[in-house]
């Protein structure tokens, strides 16, 4: 099963960043690997399937309400979607909520590369966190903007990136 395309499409809807921008971070495949190691595959299939259905039944850019209805307010899929948003923004995997773990979590089998505990995905993932560009700066400790740039007037645009296409 190749979910990468599904993952990017859903991620774009959840973050309001374009697929190309998400691909440009270079860490989307790592995030999907984290996700597919920790979340049972049946749940991921349902999540991506739900988003495909929303798109098929409505439009390529469904309204936020449709995503709230079909995914975010779903007890099984909502917490997974929220973890995807947090991963893109902060590069951190957060442990799934306790009630979700009891109902849907899978016990660790063997010694998987990623466990359902809080961790920073990787050095590069930290640097690629979306939060930094969203708040109009750069990841603290990386992508140095240059001497004296902190004295410049901050951008007036509400965001340095446009909305999903």
């Amino acid at each position, binding site marked *: 099963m190749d979910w990468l395309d599904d993952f990017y499409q859903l991620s774009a*809807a*959840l*973050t*309001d*960043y374009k697929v190309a921008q998400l691909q440009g971070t270079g860490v989307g495949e790592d995030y999907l690997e984290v996700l597919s190691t920790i979340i049972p595959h049946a749940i991921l299939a349902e999540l991506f399937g739900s988003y495909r259905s929303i798109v098929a039944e409505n439009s390529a850019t469904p309204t*936020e309400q449709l*995503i709230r209805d079909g995914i*975010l307010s779903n007890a099984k899929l909502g917490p997974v*979607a*929220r973890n995807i*948003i*947090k991963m893109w*923004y*902060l590069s*951190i995997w*957060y442990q799934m909520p306790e009630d979700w773990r009891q109902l849907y979590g899978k016990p660790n089998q063997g010694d998987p590369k990623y466990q359902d505990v*809080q*961790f*920073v995905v*990787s*050095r590069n993932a*930290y*640097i690629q966190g979306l*939060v*930094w560009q*969203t*708040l*109009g*700066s*750069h990841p*603290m*400790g*990386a992508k*140095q*903007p*240059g*001497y*004296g*740039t*902190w*004295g*410049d*007037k*901050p*951008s*007036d*645009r*509400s*965001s*340095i*990136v446009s*909305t999903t296409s």
Partner: protein
Amino acid sequence: MNTVDEFDVVVVGAGISGAIIAEQLGSKGKKVLVLEAGSGTGDRFWNSSTSTGAGSGNGKKPGYESYMDTFFTALAKIPNAPYSNNPNAPQPLVTDLEPIAQNQTLTNGYFVQKGPLPFASTYTRAEGGTTLHWLGTCLRMLPEDFKIKTEFGRGLDWPISYSDLEKWYQVAEENIGVSADAAEQSYSNIPNKAVHIPYESGYNYPMEAIPQSYLDKYMSSGLRQMTVTLDGKDYPVDVVSTPQGRNGMPRGSYRPVGAVGDSDLGQRCAGNSNCVPICPIQAKYNALKTLAQAQKTHHVEIRTQCVAYNLEVDPATQHISKVHYKQYSDPNSPEHVCKTVKGKIIVLAAHAVENAKLMLASGVGNSSDQVGRNLMDHPTMLTWGLMPTKIGAFRGPGSTSGIPSLRGGDFRRNRAAFRIEIGNWGWSWPEGAPVGTVPDLIDQKNLFGAQLKQTIASVYPRMFRFGFLVEQLPDPNNRVTIDPTYRDQLGNYRPVIDYDVSDYTRAGMAAAKQVSDLIFQRLGVEGFTEYKPSDPGYLTYQGQGYTYNGAGHLVGTHIMGSDSKTSVVNRDQRSWDHPNLYLVGCGNMPTIATSNPTLTMAALTYWAADNVYKALADM
């Protein structure tokens, strides 16, 4: 047969003060050994396994860059995040802190905290010391700070004056590489004479002032001509750029020192916005630079992973005859060998808490009963809010300006002075933003997609915080002791700390909060400040709650004075009890005043190095 290595000078500690002693004496041909309890990266910037030819080739040798790996993947990006915990040279962490219940002892970190309030500051035990994560603020003390007992009937007088120390301030500013304008730092334009600092005519810092942040400039124009009334007297509120140990534009023939191991890097600050916990390019000064200079003299040897644990005294001469240390090869294993060295002169440069601990463990230098006492910090109270417009938070060095006009004045008879630091990194300190706050937007505020993006883009650039660094007076009951019950993995003592914050300082916090409230009103800042009883540093004063944080300014555990009965070292920074024992570091400072102490400590240490050199000539 065992032979004991012998040196002109044995220095305990490879932080800034130990590095200065080693470099100064090594450059004059003296044979110096530096013992460092923690690990180190030597002269490597890049990890030797990935960089051909770097290091000396024996397998994998971590360079400074390894600290960046640790930093990037650390969940809690606290000041010690890049510098891994080393059970053989443990260090305090801010995440150890909790409120201390009455008559309880907090033991879950390296410090054993007996309260009643927790001591909130930390330091780094690794080669380069706490300068690895300092902010780089290089303020001089005010002339009145050296004589607050005489001037205000509070605290202690120093055995030296500002004018005694001035030339050493210049030496320290040259060697650290400080960027600032002397005319501005003299505060002569501030209409409060108490804070004026005389600079030698014609003197200027080696580099031009670091540019002020957009926030600094916004605030400077917003507060123009503002005054506040304190104790019936009007005081100005002036925004002034802060002198920084960070490379800027050089003046004249001065050339900044770049990164150790890759000097093309770090010759000028590039705006990584990460001075604390680590400057990725070493544009900010750290003591590795001075250690590298020391090693270039070929007279200095640095031994890392060597923990000094006992100073032996010759009963006939009262000289320190030997330094005993434990050398380990693996930080995670308690296996070690005990070794001994001799020095004509011994210099303790291990940091305020560790110097006191080593003296207490050895039973040396304490005829005054002042070793470990008078521990001070700047209890740092934060206020935070949202500016009415974007001020570009999370950009640039952590702080590029402050409000120094309330550092001195007659009010010091009644309550503590403070300096206001303007923070450039939004709510990163008070709230852990953005990493600590964005999950709440997603999980509790139920934002996603465009709403989430627009909320972050419109709110976070408006985040702003003040830090109020409040003066704390020397109090013999605020102290470091040792207790055989509490030891680390190598069997060395853990510091036991008694600590409280006096009403004098609490009154300073209350005055600081008043000033903050007035400034917030003037600028139209939407306040978000909250002090919670669950905060480790929560305290009350006259019915109001306030929270302090640690500033990382550990001062005063072996104070200097003019009387051997009430101080640990004399004005030469030599132990009153042992003719060949010198102490350096912030522990020598009898008061903390309102300036970050590193520059004053460095100035004192250059002076101490000169004293040691002269003493060696007589031996």
